[in-house]
């Protein structure tokens, strides 16, 4: 069975607790600060607000952010 994100060409965002978030199939970073991170995906713009945000790794296929995540919002581009 083909995964849904492959068919719809959507991004996959995985949150573990409130201190780890993983992005797959994303386009890039629009803004990065220790309190704010805006990630550009294919269809949306995801804003993460938190404290001590740190990008654990930033690969071309996956990105993981750690820190205290307080708020996540999705805006349609």
């Amino acid at each position, binding site marked *: 069975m083909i995964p849904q994100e492959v068919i719809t060409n959507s991004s996959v965002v995985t949150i573990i607790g409130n201190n780890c978030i993983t992005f797959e199939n994303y386009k*890039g*970073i*629009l*803004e*990065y*600060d*220790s309190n704010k991170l805006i990630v550009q995906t294919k269809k949306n713009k995801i804003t993460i607000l938190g404290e001590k*945000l*740190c*990008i*654990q*790794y*930033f*690969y*071309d296929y996956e990105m993981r952010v750690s820190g205290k995540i307080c708020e996540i919002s999705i805006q349609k581009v």
Partner: protein
Amino acid sequence: MHRIIIILRFGCFMKKSLWIWLNGYIELLISGNQKERFLNLCKNKSINIWNIRKDEDNIYCYIKSKDYFKLKPVFRKLRIVPKIMNKYGFPYLKFKYRRRKPFLIGVGIGFVLMYICSLYVWNITIEGESRHTDVELTEYLESINICEGIKIKDVICNDIERSIRKEYSDIGWVSAQIVGTRLIISIKENTLIPEKEKLPETGSLVACNNGEIVSIITRNGTPLVKAGDVVNKGDVLVSGLITIYDDAGEVKAKHKCLADADIYIKYTLKYEDTIPLKNEIKEYIGKEKKKYSIIYKKDKINLFNSVEYSDNCDIILKSCSLNIWGDFYLPFDIEVTSLRKYKMVEKVYTEEEASNKCIDNFNIYLDSIKNEYVNVEDSYIDYKIYGNFLKAAGSVTLIEKVTAYDDIYEINTEN
């Protein structure tokens, strides 16, 4: 399953980290206004960066050494001047110690020696033994050529298990396994009921002490006493001689058998104890001195300063096998000798201290007389100080099951 996935992932992570360390990596500081653009360009060029954190207006990140050169056009394009904060990994370590070849050779030899050490068994651990001692089992293992220093490939665990089971019939289960440079032998001894003392074919039950019969239940033989009777040590309680009378009341036959009965005798023992109030105790002088030694088989090498032994000193030896981590044991033992000097000083016990000691001694005495046939019914102790001594007197009432046998003698029971 979940655990296996975690271990596999951790294994992959470790492998990847080791690979990155072997190739070298650097910590970069990026400043300027186009930091996000720099990150996106790295992504587009498939350059992996990690541990990105922002500190005021700067970004710190880690990058592989060889990727740094791929980024030069990016730096030029964005007009960024990166600053290398730190360099990590094997290439930089190699460069740092390029003028210290003996050191590097030493490290290399160290690794080779460690590899050679890992091919041998340097520690044999025996678990689960209670009746057999470690020394006994180790000596047996030595007799079948299993000893410290044997090559791991020469150790066949199945053979060891089989030979131990064959040699010791009371060992029901054996497991031998090699973990690191350690041979672990786990055994389980059979918990069979011990054979009872051989009883005579015929005999009478006799009193083991002077006392009063508490209860008597006879299964075999002729009872000569009843509950409440007072008996002396050696008196026949149940005779092994069974007399059969005919209708006229005359003896028809006499049979000898082994008397069997549950007889309990109650008797009292006196207890006395004297505790001197003035005693000599050790008072330690100065600091504890320690001596370290490395032991290889029977050879001992002393490290650091040697400690002088004198008459009045406590010497405590502690020995342990040297291991680098977990079960990777090395062929050396470390021995720590602790030495502490003391002088004997006179101490006068207070009444409370002396009485506590007296009660402790009394409890030890009670434990020593108790066994499967003897129970303590009542105990009493009283103490008083006479001059420099605390004298204690008391009594213990015991109930003992009669188990003593004697030959059968004909006793005239008609009277």
